[in-house]
């Protein structure tokens, strides 16, 4: 029976159905949990990028804003629908007035696409903060772009330096070694051993900020 023509095929099908079934059940029962967790992480990231600005305007500290999630998120963050921008956009509000914006951006890394959240000032010219949503870079090397020292380089940085430019509204930057000290604003420290990934982050920021700034500069939100 084992050597007949049909038995192997039937056998395979049975095994496939059993395991695919188990996987489907597991997947569907855990989906709500996973999605809830992912949404919470995402919202906390957004909150994190605007927390510093919120702390400036309100009387709370950054820490208390983060700690009082989800209330702080519901009070201060609103999602915007900007047709044509093709990216998710949010704004941070304090008592009805907008104090900052946050955009989801993406770009190609070394191993796959990376997604990030970038918060900007209300004129879209200054980067307030940068947070990585997902990346697939090499753990221990490229993945170190999530480390605070690297991301902090982009905080409170006037990024749109040539607002009138047709080609590139951002400034020019060069990467220096992680161990060196930047001499001017145009120098950024790369992650040692992860040149391509570091370049990819910068390229993503520049491409995305160009797109966002050019799209929004003459529109009112």
């Amino acid at each position: 029976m084992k050597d007949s023509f049909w038995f192997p095929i039937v056998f395979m099908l049975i095994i496939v159905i059993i395991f695919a079934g188990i996987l489907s059940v597991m997947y569907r029962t855990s989906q709500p949990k996973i999605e809830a967790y992912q949404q919470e992480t995402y919202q906390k990231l957004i909150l994190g990028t605007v927390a510093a600005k919120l702390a400036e305007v309100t009387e709370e500290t950054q820490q208390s804003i983060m700690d009082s999630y989800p209330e702080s998120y519901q009070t201060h963050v609103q999602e915007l629908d900007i047709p044509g921008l093709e990216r998710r956009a949010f704004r941070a509000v304090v008592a009805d007035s907008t104090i900052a914006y946050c955009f989801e951006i993406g770009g190609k890394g070394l191993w796959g696409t990376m997604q990030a959240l970038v918060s900007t000032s209300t004129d879209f010219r200054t980067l307030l903060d940068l947070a990585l949503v997902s990346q697939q870079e090499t753990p221990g090397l490229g993945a170190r772009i999530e480390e605070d020292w690297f991301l902090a380089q982009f905080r409170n940085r006037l990024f749109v330096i040539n607002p009138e430019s047709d080609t590139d509204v951002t400034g020019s930057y060069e990467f220096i070694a992680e161990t060196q000290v930047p001499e001017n604003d145009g120098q950024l420290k790369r992650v040692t051993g992860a040149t391509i990934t570091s370049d990819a982050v910068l390229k993503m920021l520049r491409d995305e900020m160009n797109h966002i700034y050019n799209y929004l500069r003459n529109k009112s939100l």
Partner: protein
Amino acid sequence: MDISAFVLFWAAIFTSNILLTNFLGMCSYLSVSRELESALGLGTAVIFVLTVTAALNWVVYHYLLVPFGIVYLQFIVFIIVIAAFVQFLELLIERYAPALYYTLGIFLPLITVNCAIFGVSLFMIIRDYNFLQSVAFGAGSGIGWLLAILMLAGIRRKLKEKLVPIGLRGAGISLIITGIMALGFVGFSGIVQIQ
């Protein structure tokens, strides 16, 4: 992704060599590199399987998994496609080219577990290649793998095994040689960006 399939093909051989840069496909590589002839045989089979399965998996992913929302089964589906294709190939060869089967036969099951093949399918999805790019990537990766195994087999043939310390013979020295080759290939990186 706007890299031409042609560039991708060459990049897959040199700058992103599936074995020396991404370290996939090591197991059969280490064991079959003793003889130059076997290496050539296995490598050729790998090229064929890689190209076809890249194409097959691309079609399956975009026309079956995505429309039906069962992307989470992609690992299983890809592996099954690869295993089924190799099995089918083995049956074909056994029936229609028995001489080839005897020289090649034992290597075919080895190909199923070659992580390079699975890796290529995963990469092409992660990097969002279109069909032509995927096929070029698959073919190039296969040739890159063949290149690596031929190099190692060639070196091992010339290696005076007597001079190698006993504990290092076989796997040990192969690993060191591969490490040096990998270092050499690091020099290629950055010439062409395939992401």
